[in-house]
């Protein structure tokens, strides 16, 4: 008889735990053994005894926390099955950010997929999502309401470029999360043929270098020199979201405040942040893609980790799929934890 799913994966205060393999997935507190889906700071934290993640995620953690971020590390090869204790484990691309992976755990004929954060839309900076059929699918629901349908990213980038053309005397300050979103925006701009330098806030620098060293062409991305800010009329500047309204952005010539995020779909959210040019570019699945992915995995049961759980659970139930919210704490809305990381990076970079 197949194992029950809750025998394979349970919830603990540290996060999802697999007793048969004695490991946690994306634990929010230090543990003995952690499997990490991707490098965002709410999922990848420092201080675990051992960490298993993709090579790129390990590099990202090294850049963020220093090379001694864990007692020991183990590189997870994509699509390779590894035995851990009494379960087999396999990492596959999740399409979220560079190095992001879903983790499939299998034991006694039952397969559970922990998808971490994922998206289905095109992204030139990471491998595309791969559907992994399973019995239990564990999904996020950051944008788990049917009002969230992300538009074509090309249209959004074009909006930015049109605005740069219309206001050549103003600097366009684009808030974007330091890991993933920032580099994706750069790559999208390059795809649209924008070949001028894209100016970066200091907090973006090291991760952008890491992306480049992974062979992702992002072009010329000079760091903004404090004294030169007033000369950047007509330029595109990318900075952490916390900086778009900060003292830092004041010195640019008549700045246009832009923000690249899935939240920008809702006007009130954009207004609340004082955004003048919202760019709906998200690294998460929108509603249609969440629903589609659940169906494509063929899962009979869905657990929803965080976000707008209720609507997605409701949808699963009306489509004959058992579903429950996990109400997991510690995982941010898109980028909220990232904000903190960016802010601290900024503090050391206050110039």
């Amino acid at each position, binding site marked *: 008889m197949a194992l029950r799913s809750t025998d394979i994966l349970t919830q603990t205060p540290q996060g999802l735990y697999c007793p048969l393999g004695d490991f946690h997935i994306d634990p929010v507190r230090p543990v003995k053994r952690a499997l990490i889906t991707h490098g965002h700071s709410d999922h990848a934290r420092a201080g675990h005894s051992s960490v298993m993640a993709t090579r790129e995620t390990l590099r990202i953690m090294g850049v963020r926390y220093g090379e001694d971020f864990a007692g020991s590390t183990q590189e997870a090869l994509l699509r390779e099955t590894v035995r851990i204790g009494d379960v087999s484990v396999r990492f596959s691309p999740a399409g979220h950010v560079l190095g992001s992976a879903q983790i499939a755990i299998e034991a006694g004929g039952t397969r559970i997929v922990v998808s971490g954060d994922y998206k*289905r839309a095109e992204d030139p900076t990471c491998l595309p999502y791969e559907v992994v059929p399973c019995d239990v699918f564990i999904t996020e629901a950051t944008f788990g309401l049917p009002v969230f349908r992300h538009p074509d990213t090309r249209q959004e980038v074009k909006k930015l470029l049109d605005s740069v053309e219309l206001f050549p005397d103003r600097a366009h300050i684009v808030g974007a999360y330091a890991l993933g979103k920032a580099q994706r925006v750069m790559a999208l701009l390059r795809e649209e043929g924008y070949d001028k330098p894209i100016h970066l806030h200091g907090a973006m620098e090291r991760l952008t270098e890491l992306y480049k060293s992974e062979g992702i062409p992002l072009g010329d991305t000079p760091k903004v020199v404090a004294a030169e800010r007033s000369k950047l009329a007509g330029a595109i500047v990318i900075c952490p979201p916390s900086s778009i309204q900060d003292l830092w952005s004041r010195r640019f010539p008549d700045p246009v405040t832009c923000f690249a995020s899935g939240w920008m779909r809702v006007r009130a959210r954009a207004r609340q942040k004082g955004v003048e*040019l919202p760019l709906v570019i998200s690294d998460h699945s929108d*509603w249609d893609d969440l629903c589609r992915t659940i169906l494509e995995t063929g899962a009979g049961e869905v657990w929803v980790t965080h976000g707008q759980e209720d609507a997605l659970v409701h949808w699963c139930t009306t489509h004959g799929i058992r579903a429950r919210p996990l109400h997991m704490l510690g995982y941010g809305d898109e980028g909220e934890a990232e904000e903190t990381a960016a802010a601290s990076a900024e503090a050391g970079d206050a110039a």
Partner: protein
Amino acid sequence: MNRFAALLDRLGYEPRRNAKLRLLVDYFRHTPDPDRGYALAAMTGALMFKEAKPGLIRGLVEERTDPELFRMSYHYVGDLAETVALIWPAPGHESVAPPSPLRGGVGVGVGKQERGADNAVASGPASTSQSSPLPGRTTPTSNSSPQEGGEIGPGHNNPPPHVPTLSEVIETLATTGKSDLPARIAAWMDALDETGRWALIKLVTRELRVGVSARLAKTAVAQLGGMEPDEVELIWHGLEAPYEDLFAWVEGRGERPESGNPAPFRPPMLSHPLEDEDFAKLEASDFLAEWKWDGIRLQAAAGHGSDERPVRRIYSRTGEDVSRAFPDLVEALDFEGAIDGELLIVREGRVQSFNVLQQRLNRKAVTPKLIAEFPAHLRVYDILFEGEEDLRPLPFAERRKRLEALVTRLDDPRIDLSPMVPFASWEDLAAARADPASLGAGPDADAIEGCMIKRASSPYLPGRPKGYWYKWKRDPYLVDAVMMYGQRGHGKRSSFYSDYTFGVWRDGPDGEELVPVGKAYHGFTDEELLKLDRYVRNHTVKRFGPVREVEYGKDRGLVLEVAFEGLQRSTRHKSGVAMRFPRISRIRWDKPAAEADRIETLEKILERGEKEIHPLKDREANEA
């Protein structure tokens, strides 16, 4: 429709006037006729179709979505038009559709077969993902992005729906009957994207609200051809959507359109505030003075059409035709020409306060009851035309004589002259300004907000020419209040805490407490703004999104001297009062918060302005 939608979308987020103007000019320059003309009509409120009710839109979306998902979405988004625009299940987005009756609702009687059917539907839109390794599963094949794929749903082998142009939408709306309207709107909604649907809803419900005044839109049109906005204003009221003749003219491709309006609007003459240093430069004997009434500036124009029927119009200061709101006043315009004056409410010969006037304004339905309770009155002070004769080049003193003669001839209690204030020196006038009641204004003094000073020789010139007309407002009210909250500003000031909510003391259940009485975001210098911003940042106790609560109490807090023009009662504010034009007049770094004013100070000001004559019902009660 997409260009128009993109324009509205961008305008809605843009706080700066000049940037709005640039967006509008860019739109008019790059959008062909007749679309741009209809856009202009939409923004100037010149469209004539019958608007759709929000209920219709709601009904349409409810037929198409799972009620529970709609409820959660509406709750989250908070705005009906936006929720509908975002959730609308266009072909290819079936995942919000209500559960089919076959499924029998929540999780009951679910068959494998139906799951399969759903699966086929949902996996149809193109995907960028790698195909699943499991054999026998439906796998996506196309390489296009899901967004594009979403346009054509699986099982919909039809070509993509036709995206309507703005002209099509407006021309169709003008001819569509009530019963066909829902189907029309639904078909357009299917064809448009999220922003397009949002703009469509705003358009069909006639609730544009993107912060563009008619004046700004006309200014943008004028800028297309490097003209002054008043040149457009002059011919505006003879024109009709889609304004192809207007665009041809400003772009230098056509003749100046003839104004076919026998009662056109003419741009009004405006005044400059009088500064202290001006007195030394101005000779009192060159000037005439009137009271400055606390009402609404209006222009009344009358003429006759080609069929000899009288045409009577009332325009706002910005040229908006507001005749429909004042049928009682329109009736009184028994002359030909154009006169300039102030809209007031007069009961039993006494001018009522601005608070009373406001109750007459912005009403959708102008009922006989409203007219009886709030009788509109025009107190005139200038004449621009008499018959066909343009009086604007004449000196003010001569125009005044012509005006006096006209008002005498009209002999209508609804139209009277704004009296002159006699004075021999600036000191005389200062005394009159300080106490209008004793100098001829009598009981109307409360509706006076200072003096107007006009050069006797001044012609009537459009705009705000220098050296002719001055306004000398009465001193503002002042109150010492304590800063309670700071909020980020907009546009250039978006990184500063530049909007301050302030409060005064009142007795609460636990002793004295501060109650917010207003919010101000100007009156200080750039240098003071830096200091205030720093103060907010350094004294924050709580954050609510863009708002920070600062420290305040008996022994701490910053006192702001707030200047304002008037007060009115308000049910929306905790304190029960709302201020007109509040601004920070001084920052009292020196004053302890405990010494700030109490709410009673405001109550007294309120009572002054409330010596109103009560309308009909109350009066009868008083007489009884």
